[in-house]
């Protein structure tokens, strides 16, 4: 248990699930090891005992079938929460996510909406190597018909699920594995959140660090280091990757005129590139210099700790990119 007034990202996720299951009989949680095992990351621990095996439903290892079953159940009047253990395994369900969940409403001319929430753990940083370390939320954000959300705080971990379940269309929730033990304020009474809006997590005047998900703590840590150098960084948490909150992006650029985008996805064709394109489209004349980006090196994620660290965005990379963005000395070899 956490100290009074505080919690962890994992506990906040669990409270969100518990509240959702308690609030609506149509809601059920389905996925691999969500019940007896307690969730492969212990997020759903205790929920089987509280809600029973029909509503905390262990599924066989068949991602395509149980994601598709979630789609069918949603069409059939339920409000399923499907847990795909990790984003890596969601690739086995890509047909259902893309060809059915994302497509049915439009293809049927508005007849069939799919009120389905799919949760999955994403990201690297735990030495799980190339097949268990993907950050594909930006990929999914490419697909019209999906909403893609990336809780990064205990409040969003607790409350985004409620908003996602109220959405009449499919919502993909990407929970970063490295955040699970991250402490934060107890959000029980913090109240509902808006899935359409990005959030400024730290206000600043000199440079905007735009990020989401597991990179948020790194961006905030970088901002503290930059403050010691006299660079006042603003940190924007996108929260939702589709639809992107373009207004919030434009607003922060208009405040600082210098931008660093931090994205744990690969650089080429990533959500980072779309963010920069939005700035180009809507805030080009607000820029005082080229946008910098800190992304994962374009390699499969390696196992060895020093190699993995070298592959992923790190605090010092964000610091260095921010110095370059504002034209400060030490940017090239910080």
């Amino acid at each position, binding site marked *: 248990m956490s100290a009074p007034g505080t919690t962890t990202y994992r506990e906040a996720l669990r409270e969100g699930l518990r509240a959702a299951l308690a609030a609506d009989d149509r809601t059920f949680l389905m996925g691999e090891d969500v019940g007896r095992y307690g969730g492969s990351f212990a997020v759903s621990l205790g929920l089987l005992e509280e809600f029973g095996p029909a509503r905390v439903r262990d599924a066989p290892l068949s991602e395509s079938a*149980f994601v*598709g*079953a979630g789609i069918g*159940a949603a069409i059939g009047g339920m409000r399923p929460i499907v847990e795909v253990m990790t984003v890596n395994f969601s690739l086995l369900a890509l047909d259902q996510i893309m060809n059915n969940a994302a497509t049915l409403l439009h293809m049927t001319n508005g007849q069939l909406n799919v009120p389905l929430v799919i949760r999955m753990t994403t990201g690297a940083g735990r030495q799980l190597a190339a097949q268990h370390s993907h950050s594909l939320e930006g990929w999914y954000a490419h697909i019209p018909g999906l909403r893609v959300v990336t809780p990064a705080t205990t409040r969003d971990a607790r409350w985004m699920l409620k908003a996602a379940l109220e959405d009449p269309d499919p919502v993909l929730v990407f929970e970063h594995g490295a955040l699970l033990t991250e402490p934060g304020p107890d959000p029980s009474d913090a109240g509902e959140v808006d899935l359409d809006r990005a959030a400024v997590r730290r206000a600043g005047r000199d440079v905007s660090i735009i990020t989401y998900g597991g990179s948020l703590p790194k961006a905030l840590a970088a901002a503290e280091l930059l403050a010691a150098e006299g660079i006042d960084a603003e940190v924007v948490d996108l929260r939702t990757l589709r639809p992107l909150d373009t207004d919030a992006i434009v607003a922060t650029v208009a405040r600082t005129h210098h931008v660093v985008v931090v994205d744990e996805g690969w650089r080429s064709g990533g959500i980072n590139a779309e963010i920069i394109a939005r700035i180009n489209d809507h805030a080009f004349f607000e820029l005082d210099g080229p946008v910098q980006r800190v992304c994962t090196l374009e390699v499969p994620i390696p196992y060895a700790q020093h190699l993995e660290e070298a592959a992923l965005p790190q605090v010092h990379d964000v610091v260095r990119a921010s110095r370059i963005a504002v034209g400060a000395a030490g940017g090239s070899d910080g």
Partner: protein
Amino acid sequence: MTTTPESVDIDLPIALDRLRAMVRVRRFEERCVELYSASAIRGFLHLAIGEEAVAAGVLAALEPDDAVVATYREHGHALLRGLSMRSIMSEMLGMQEGCCGGRGGSMHLFSAEHRFYGGNAIVGGGLPVATGLALADQMQARDRVTACFFGEGAMAEGEFHESMNLAALWELPVLFCCENNLYAMGTALDRSESQVDLALKASSYAMAAWVVDGMDVIAVEHAARAAAAQIRAGGGPVFLELRTYRFRAHSMYDPDRYRDKEEIERWRERDPIALLAAAIVAAGGPADPVGDLEAEVAAEIDDAVAFAEAGTPAPVDSLTRFVTSEVAR
């Protein structure tokens, strides 16, 4: 393990009704070929000519509350589920009046009102959705069956195996209807399956699995009724292997190089419409039961084509509607 329900004597009024169903589908699709040749219908067009007994028999066994999930070869399923010929033909012509507003076309006929859930063009992709529709019914204690059609080609797909396992494991009310027409596009069954006894394969999921003559509409209906009754009684899913044959190519693009003409001719001797017509005559029914239907069916098709041709092309300014739902959050 695998059993085949006994054939039954025909009941003349029922037989005439099923004959009418199959003739409607056959003539509708023949008209689609003409419209395709005239470039009024474009894209892919997959015909079920020769396979009409499958849809006619299974759909006759379902109730209005049941659900249907079909494939891209689904004109007949949609029509016999109750979608109007006008709405289907309008869809084929890309009109706003189409059942999907011209967005789906031949491969994606849907009607929420009829619980007709496609029109799925990824082989095997409909099976998980059907499993979920059945799960919703089970969890809400509704007495419904979800009929899921797929070709034998789907049985090589992972989604087939995952869905069969899930449906059997959770005893879900799904009627799995394998339309075995012996060819997955151009790949013959014995070139695509290590085990060509499909009912045997299905039965390995601890599921009742029956082989049915898919050219005999009465046998298909009989089997589907027995299966649906077993499912409604809580017996879990049932698999039907419906042995049939398509008389025409896979799609309008297919030169049909992979089959012998003699094989096609042999199967044409078991044309489901001719077989039932002969049985009706033998049972003392009208002398030309198909001929008796032609004028009425042609009139329905003429009406549907005229309606579709006079339709409104789906407006471009509506293109971005329904990417997401249009409701207040």
